[in-house]
């Protein structure tokens, strides 16, 4: 699809609904954009981490002498060198910066080495050793809940159970008896690695004024600042965090990675700047992952296809630390029934500590796992009733005003039915029978659909707020202070588009200030499909406010009767009555600094419902109030001889409100679909006894240029009144579709269903063989 491009240099404001190129595009294509991993500087030293390498041990003496005596080594630090709490974590501070009592997974940091160069650093890291007492480990989330399982956190009141939720509507599971058909399924989804191209990286230095300055690849500079200060025993205001564009993040940089370690190194480097960059193996080992899930589903329906009862039990493996595990569980529970009306629901979920890699935020945040299950249960129900899968979804899909599967009344725009109807009209859906018939020898073709929903924001308790700041400089240029990180999703550009359309300025008449705790205002994490929704609303307020002040001052200067006679034009204002122009630089000269800076706060609306899903579940975000919707179609070909699945075409029809920038919108959809295809077909961070076996891109395979099909993104634009210019979040939803759509397509092609993912050729072949065996018996 060709998109209309207004390069923003034609003198006019960028407008809403137009594909202006990214503000960062020029710097990125010319190699001049400076990422956190590109910071070096005079007198630089390197720091790196000694990882535990064992999954569960009591740590004894840490031997640092040989490493300290290595030429080029400045310092070898352990937990005893940390002056603060030595604990980090998003909600519960249960993760040591440097392990003191125990190591709870192979990636735990035991010692920090600072050295003159990378070579001496690596040499010294090899020489650090420690005494330990081996503890039995637990590597399976369900085993971790059994009586007598090794306990990870002795002080945690519920043993290895981090958080559990239980929720019922109507008659709960007992309504299953009233159903004409009941289908059952058990699903296992894999541990997915973010695999951003820029690994965790940063740079830090104690500044002349004694403050700690950290530049890092992060989604959460303001939260990082609190974590670093607390863990290292510093005053919050003595820490500054600057967040350049990360080289990808997807949730993996939501929370501290290198920050506290870098800060500790900088406090011990004699004032020299310090650099840290994890290598790929370390990123796989110590970074967070998508929670592996076990999902046990029963879904009951009436003869006409009306869904009646849903019973779900899910277990998530959160690894050794809370991180964001509880929030992932809450979102999983909320989305477990999809975007359907189901009167009787019984949901149970557990998020469990194990000695596996740390589970954390990853685009989709629990929803890809449960969508994998519910969207296949719908197809299984349709199959049993001999109904069309699309028709079955339409029969049950929520409308605005409906209660969804957890009983939440949908008050915002609700476009699932529109998406499903558009899918039904799509040429690839209509021509699927002919396409399927065209399969060659030993090939089977199938079509599969999935209906999706995804919440945005933090839920009912944690305030989902943003604080925007816009400045008219003394020279007459606008500065837009972005409070939320742009990790590649393009919100920095969208911010320019929003501000530019209000202030009537082309994008080159404005300048972005990227998130920096000293310069921009706290606006929450770059996560939860919230960035442009929450920050955009704040930015509209700040820009409108500044516009009013400029127009008023201009009206006074031009002796206009009121500011209604003045309009902003690129670079200035125009008096509509006299036709006289004034440049912004002149008006700025008549404004005090306090007048030239405008700030605005926005808090996202929350659900009024107070559902009891167990202690803590509401605090972790249950329920939300604003949802995006989508309908996906996958056309796949299965090789009966090799078991290989090829996704031939993919269609994603989405209701994410108004489209502000079609190109950026499409990129979000296509990129998430590609990650979803990886989740469905090839990605699995395999570990045995806590040791990761897929340590590089040769073992952990993500989709390459040769693996991704043409992806058709079709927006269904339904204006969302609470969104900036009518938009809703688009960042995550498309991640939820590929696994169930592809699995449904495989079932359509071969009559077999895969319940364990990814759907590797081995699993497909085994399923086909089992089916053949059953038939011949």
């Amino acid at each position: 699809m060709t998109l209309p491009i207004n390069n923003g240099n034609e003198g006019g404001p960028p407008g809403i609904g137009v594909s202006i190129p990214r503000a960062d595009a020029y710097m990125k294509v010319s190699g001049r954009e400076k990422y956190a991993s590109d910071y070096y500087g005079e007198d630089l030293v390197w720091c790196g981490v000694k990882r535990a390498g064992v999954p569960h041990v009591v740590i004894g003496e840490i031997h640092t002498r040989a490493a300290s005596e290595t030429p080029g080594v400045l310092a070898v630090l352990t937990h005893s060198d940390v002056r603060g709490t030595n604990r980090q974590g998003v909600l519960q501070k249960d993760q040591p910066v440097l392990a003191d009592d125990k190591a709870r997974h192979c990636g735990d940091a035991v010692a920090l080495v600072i050295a003159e160069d990378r070579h001496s650093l690596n040499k010294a890291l090899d020489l650090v050793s420690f005494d330990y007492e081996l503890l039995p480990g637990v590597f399976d989330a369900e085993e971790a809940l059994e009586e007598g399982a090794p306990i990870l956190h002795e002080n945690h009141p519920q043993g290895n159970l981090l958080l559990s939720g239980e929720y019922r509507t109507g008659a709960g599971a007992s309504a299953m008896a009233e159903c004409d058909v009941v289908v059952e399924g058990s699903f296992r989804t894999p541990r997915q690695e973010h695999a951003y191209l820029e690994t965790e990286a940063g740079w830090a230095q104690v500044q002349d004024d004694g403050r700690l300055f950290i530049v890092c690849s992060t989604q959460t500079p303001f939260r990082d600042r609190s974590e670093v200060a607390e863990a290292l025993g510093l005053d919050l205001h003595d820490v500054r965090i600057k967040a350049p564009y990360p080289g990808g993040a997807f949730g993996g940089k939501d929370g501290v990675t290198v920050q506290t370690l870098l800060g500790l190194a900088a406090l011990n480097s004699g004032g020299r700047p310090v650099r840290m960059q994890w290598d790929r193996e370390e990123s796989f080992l110590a970074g967070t992952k998508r929670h592996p899930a076990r999902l046990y589903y029963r879904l009951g329906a009436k003869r006409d296809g009306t869904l009646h009862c849903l019973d779900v039990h899910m277990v998530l493996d959160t690894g050794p630390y809370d991180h964001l595990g509880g929030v992932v569980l809450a979102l999983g529970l909320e989305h477990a029934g999809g975007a359907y009306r189901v009167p009787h629901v019984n949901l149970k979920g557990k998020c469990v500590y194990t000695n596996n890699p740390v589970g954390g935020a990853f685009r989709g945040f629990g929803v890809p796992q449960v969508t994998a299950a519910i969207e296949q249960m719908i197809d299984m129900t349709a199959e049993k009733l001999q109904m069309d899968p699309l028709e079955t979804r339409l029969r049950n899909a929520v409308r605005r005003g409906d209660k969804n599967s957890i009983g939440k009344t949908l008050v915002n725009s609700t476009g699932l039915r529109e998406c499903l109807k558009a899918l039904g009209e799509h040429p690839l859906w209509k021509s699927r029978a002919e396409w399927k018939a065209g399969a060659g020898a030993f090939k089977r073709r199938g079509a599969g659909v999935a209906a999706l929903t995804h919440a945005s924001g933090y839920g009912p308790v944690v305030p989902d707020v943003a604080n925007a700041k816009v400045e008219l400089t003394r020279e007459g240029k606008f500065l837009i202070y972005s409070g939320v990180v742009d990790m590649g999703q393009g919100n920095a550009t969208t911010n320019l588009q929003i501000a530019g359309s209000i202030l009537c300025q082309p994008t080159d008449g404005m300048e972005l200030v990227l998130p920096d705790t000293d310069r921009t205002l706290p606006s929450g994490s770059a996560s939860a499909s919230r960035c442009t929704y929450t920050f955009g609303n704040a930015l509209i307020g700040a820009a409108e406010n500044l516009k009013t002040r400029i127009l008023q001052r201009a009206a006074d200067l031009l002796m206009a009767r009121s500011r209604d006679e003045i309009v902003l034009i690129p670079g200035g204002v125009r008096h509509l009555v006299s036709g006289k122009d004034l440049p912004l630089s002149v008006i700025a000269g008549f404004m005090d600094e306090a007048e030239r800076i405008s700030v605005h706060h926005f808090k996202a609306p929350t659900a009024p419902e107070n559902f009891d899903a167990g202690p803590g579940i509401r605090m972790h975000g249950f329920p939300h109030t604003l949802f995006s919707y989508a309908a996906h179609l996958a056309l796949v070909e299965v090789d009966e001889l090799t078991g290989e699945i090829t996704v031939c075409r993919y269609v994603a029809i989405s209701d994410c409100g108004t489209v502000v920038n079609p190109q950026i919108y499409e990129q979000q959809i296509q990129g998430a679909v590609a990650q979803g295809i990886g989740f469905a077909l090839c990605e699995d961070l395999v570990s045995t006894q806590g040791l990761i076996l897929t340590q590089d891109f040769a073992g952990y395979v993500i989709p390459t240029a040769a693996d991704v099909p043409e992806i058709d993104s079709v927006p269904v634009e339904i204006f969302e009144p609470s969104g900036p210019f009518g938009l809703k979040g688009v960042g995550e939803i498309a991640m939820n579709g590929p696994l169930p759509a592809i699995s449904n397509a495989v079932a359509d092609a071969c009559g077999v269903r895969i319940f364990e993912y990814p759907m590797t050729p081995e699993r497909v072949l085994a399923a086909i063989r089992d089916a053949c065996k059953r038939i011949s018996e």
Partner: protein
Amino acid sequence: MATEVRFKLNGNRMQMTVEDHWTLLHLLREELGLTGTKEGCGSGECGACTVVVDGLAVNSCLYLAVDVAGKDVLTIEGLAGKDGTLHPLQKSFVENGGIQCGFCTPGMILASKALLDENPRPSEAEIKHALAGNLCRCTGYVPIFASIQAVIDQGIEEVDVVVRQSESPSD
């Protein structure tokens, strides 16, 4: 051990002493400060460090610095004109949305340039094959293909055919 090497870098004649164990990536980023070349894996699997050596796209993390002796090296910093005018591929990536986080972009553009220099009219399959060693985690590749296709379609790439040398270390 160090060796004195002469080579061309982005059109400039270079003469410098390089340690024998240095990779070309180390030489570019850490000795010369050319941070446009990115490190994504350090083991030749992701393509983020791709540069062009004598017309061939190579993973600079696997390429020893001493091996550039007598060769012509192009990095992303040398692709645009001296006045900042973008190369047609760079311009097309900007216009067609071939960039998100941008970390794979320098390598992706240089791999595309090496492809088009050798084969100005590649088929879709040839484009996919040529870029299969350059991972992108953001875009799903779709707008990257569109960016390259636009350059091919418009015929704006100044074709500069380079004959592949069979003894080149990346073969």
